[in-house]
C-alpha cells in the first residue's frame, strides 16, 4: 500500500431493508415493540442486509481500477462510500487528498441560475475555491462548449448542454483521485471522445481513477485493473481477465429452451474438428449445432442465428434463414431437426456470445435462446474494434522483398486454422 491514494480495506456495509420510520406514527410503535422485550438482534437480522461484505482494494497514483458487476452488486455503494456520502459499517475507506467525483455532475445546478452562476455554485459544492474557479473559468466554458449561453439560466439549456457543463466543471477539478460512474455517456460522440481523452490525461498526470460502468468495453479501454463485485469481491486483477470471468459468470449457456412452439435443444459450439470450444483465434471456422423440436406442426418459420459482443452488447451478426430455404417446411410435430450454422469468427479479441431463435412468421411468435454459447477470441494485435479484417501489411521498394511480401499473422508466426478457408491465398499478397 504505502503510496495508494484510494484505500478500501475490509469494508462491510449494512443497509436496512425497506423504509425507516419516517414519521412519528411509525416511531412510536417501534419504540413500544423494542420496549416490550423483543430482542433487538431478531429485528435487525430480519430487516437488514449486507450490501458489501469484506471488500478491499487500493488504487495507486496514475492507476485506473474498473469496478464491474451485475445490478445490485454494490457498485454504487462503493462509490458512495468513496465519496463520503455513506460511512462503512466496518472497515476503512479513505481517499488521501481531494476526491473528484464524476457522479451527478450537475446535481447542484439550480435551473433558475445562469450557467456562470451555476459554475461557481457547483464548483463550490465540489470544494473548489473562488480563485480556482475564476482561474479555470475560461477552460470550463470552453470545454463544455456553452460560451454563447453562459448568461442564460440553465433551465433553458438542452439536457446535453446541462450535462456537458456539469462534466466540464468536474473535469477541471484538481483531484488526487477521480471517481467515475457511467458519465462517459454524456453528450454527443465528439464530446464523449473529449471526456475519454480527459480521463486518460488525468491518469497520465498521476490521478488515481476508480471507474464504475456496465460498459465493459469502456472499462477495458480505460483501466489496468478491474474488480468484479457481487456483494463481495468475486475476482480482481488484470482487466481482461476479470472481464472474462465476469462475462462467463453472467451467461452460462442455455442447454434448452422450451416454448409452446418449438423447443431449442442442446445447442453446442464446435470447431472444425468437431470439438466443443470456448476460446478461439480470429478467423476460426466454427459451427453451432442446434436441435429443434416442434411442439406442433408449423409452417413458415424463420431460424435466427447471431453473435453479440458481451462487453457492450454490440450485435456483430444477426441473420435468419427460412424453413423454405432450408427445405424443412413444414416442421412436423415431434420430429427433431438439427441445423448446423457454420460460420467464420472474423473477430478481434474480446468476449462474445451466440444466440439463436425461431420465429413463426404468421403469428410473429418467437422462441429465443441467449446465450447458447460463449466465445473468447484471443489475439494480441488489435487495440480496439470488433471485426478481424485480415489485414496484411506489405513492405515494398527493396529488390529482395518484391518476390515475397511478409504477411503477419496474429500474435506472431503460428499456423492459423482458418488459412485454408481464406478466400485469398497467402501467395496472392505478393502478386497484388
Amino acid at each position, binding site marked *: 500500500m504505502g503510496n495508494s491514494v484510494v484505500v478500501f480495506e475490509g469494508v462491510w456495509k449494512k443497509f436496512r431493508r425497506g423504509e425507516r420510520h*419516517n414519521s412519528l406514527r411509525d416511531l412510536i410503535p417501534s419504540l413500544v415493540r423494542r420496549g416490550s422485550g423483543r430482542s433487538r438482534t431478531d429485528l435487525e437480522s430480519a430487516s437488514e442486509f449486507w450490501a458489501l461484505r469484506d471488500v478491499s482494494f487500493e488504487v495507486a497514483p496514475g492507476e485506473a481500477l474498473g469496478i464491474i458487476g451485475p445490478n445490485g452488486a454494490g457498485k454504487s455503494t462503493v462509490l458512495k462510500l468513496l465519496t463520503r456520502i455513506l460511512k462503512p459499517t466496518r472497515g476503512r475507506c479513505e481517499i488521501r487528498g481531494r476526491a473528484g467525483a464524476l457522479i451527478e455532475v450537475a446535481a447542484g445546478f*439550480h435551473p433558475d441560475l445562469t450557467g456562470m452562476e451555476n459554475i461557481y*455554485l457547483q464548483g463550490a459544492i465540489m470544494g473548489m475555491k473562488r480563485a480556482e474557479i475564476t482561474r479555470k473559468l475560461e477552460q470550463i466554458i470552453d470545454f463544455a462548449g456553452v460560451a454563447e449561453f453562459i448568461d442564460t439560466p440553465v433551465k433553458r439549456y438542452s439536457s446535453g448542454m446541462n450535462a456537458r457543463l456539469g462534466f466540464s466543471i468536474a473535469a477541471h477539478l484538481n483531484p488526487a483521485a477521480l471517481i467515475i460512474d457511467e458519465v462517459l455517456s454524456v453528450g454527443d460522440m465528439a464530446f464523449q471522445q473529449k471526456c475519454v481523452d480527459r480521463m486518460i490525461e488525468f491518469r497520465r498526470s498521476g490521478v488515481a481513477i476508480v471507474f464504475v460502468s456496465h460498459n465493459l468495453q469502456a472499462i477495458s479501454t480505460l483501466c489496468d485493473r478491474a474488480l468484479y463485485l457481487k456483494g463481495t469481491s468475486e475476482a480482481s486483477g488484470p482487466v481482461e481477465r476479470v472481464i472474462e470471468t465476469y462475462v462467463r459468470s453472467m451467461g452460462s449457456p442455455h442447454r434448452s429452451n422450451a416454448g409452446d412452439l418449438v423447443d431449442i435443444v442442446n445447442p453446442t459450439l464446435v470447431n472444425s474438428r468437431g470439438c466443443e470450444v470456448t476460446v478461439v483465434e480470429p478467423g476460426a471456422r466454427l459451427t453451432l449445432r442446434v436441435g429443434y423440436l416442434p411442439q406442433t406442426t408449423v409452417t413458415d418459420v424463420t431460424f435466427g442465428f447471431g453473435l453479440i459482443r458481451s462487453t457492450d452488447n454490440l450485435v456483430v451478426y444477426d441473420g435468419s434463414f427460412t424453413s423454405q430455404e432450408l427445405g424443412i417446411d413444414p416442421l412436423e410435430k415431434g420430429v427433431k431437426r438439427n441445423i448446423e450454422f457454420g460460420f467464420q469468427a472474423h473477430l478481434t479479441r474480446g468476449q462474445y456470445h451466440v444466440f439463436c431463435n425461431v420465429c413463426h412468421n404468421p403469428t410473429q411468435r418467437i422462441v429465443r435462446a441467449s446465450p447458447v454459447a460463449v466465445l473468447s477470441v484471443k489475439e494480441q494485435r488489435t487495440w480496439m474494434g470488433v471485426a478481424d479484417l485480415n489485414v496484411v501489411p506489405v513492405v515494398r521498394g527493396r529488390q529482395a522483398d518484391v518476390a515475397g511480401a511478409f504477411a503477419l499473422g496474429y500474435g506472431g508466426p503460428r499456423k492459423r486454422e482458418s488459412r485454408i478457408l481464406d478466400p485469398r491465398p497467402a501467395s496472392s499478397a505478393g502478386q497484388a
Partner: protein
Amino acid sequence: MWKRLLADIAELLGEQAEYRELLYRMTLRDLKLRYKQTLMGVGWAIFTPLVNTAVFSVVFMRVAPIDTGMPYPLFAYSGLLAWTFTASALRFSVTSLTSNANLVTKVYFPREIFPFSAVVVSLVDAAIASVVLAALMADYGVHPTPTALLLPIVIVVQVAFTTGIALLLGMGNLFYRDVKYLFEIVLTIWMFVTSVVFPVQLVGGRLGGVLALNPMTPIVDAYRQVLLQGAWPGPAFWITAFVSVIVLAWSWVFFHRSEFEFAESV
C-alpha cells in the same frame, strides 16, 4: 469523551473553513432566486413586519391599549423584526435538508451548510428590514445611545441560538417528517409567549413564571434595551447568551455526528 468532543469540534470548524465558499454560494443562490422571481424583491423583507406592525398597532393602541414604555409601533416593529429573523430562519431550515435531498444523497460536503445558509439569508432580510426601524426611530425622535454598541453582541447571541435550533430542526425533519407540521404550530404559539407584540411580563402569575423561561424574550427585549431605551440588557439576557452558545455547540456536534446517516434516511 472530552478528547473526542474537541476533535469533533476541530473537524467541523475545519470543514466550515474549507467549504466557506459553498456557504457563500448557497446563500447567494437563495437570495438571488428570491429576488429574481418576485416582483417586490427586497420589498418583501420589509413588507411582512410592516403589515404586522400596522395590524397589532390597531389592536394594542385602539382596541386594548397597553403600556409598553415606548411608542407602540416602535415596540412592535423592533419585536417583529427580531422575531421574524428567528422565525424565518427556522422555517427555511426545517425543510432545508429534505428539499435538497438530491444533493444530500449525491455529493458530500458539510450538511450544516443548508441550515447555515437559511440563517444567513434571514439575517440579510432582517438587515434590510432594519432600515424601517431606523426610520421609525427618527420619526419618533428616539436617538441611539452608547449602549447601541452592544447591538452586535445581541445579534451574535440571537444568531447562535437560532442556528442551534435550526440544526436540530433540519435534522429532525429529515428523520421524521412530522417535525415540519409540529414546528408550524409551535412557532405560532411561540410568538405569543415572547415579548414580540406585547410585553410578556404582563401575563404574570404561575404562567408568567413559566413563560420567563423562554429564551427568546430576553433576546427580543435586549434589542429594545440597547437600541431604544439606552439600557444594558438584564441578567436574563446574559444567561440566555450562555445557554445559546451551549445549545449551538451541542446541536452542531450532534448534527455532525449524525450527518453520515442523512443520505440513508432522506
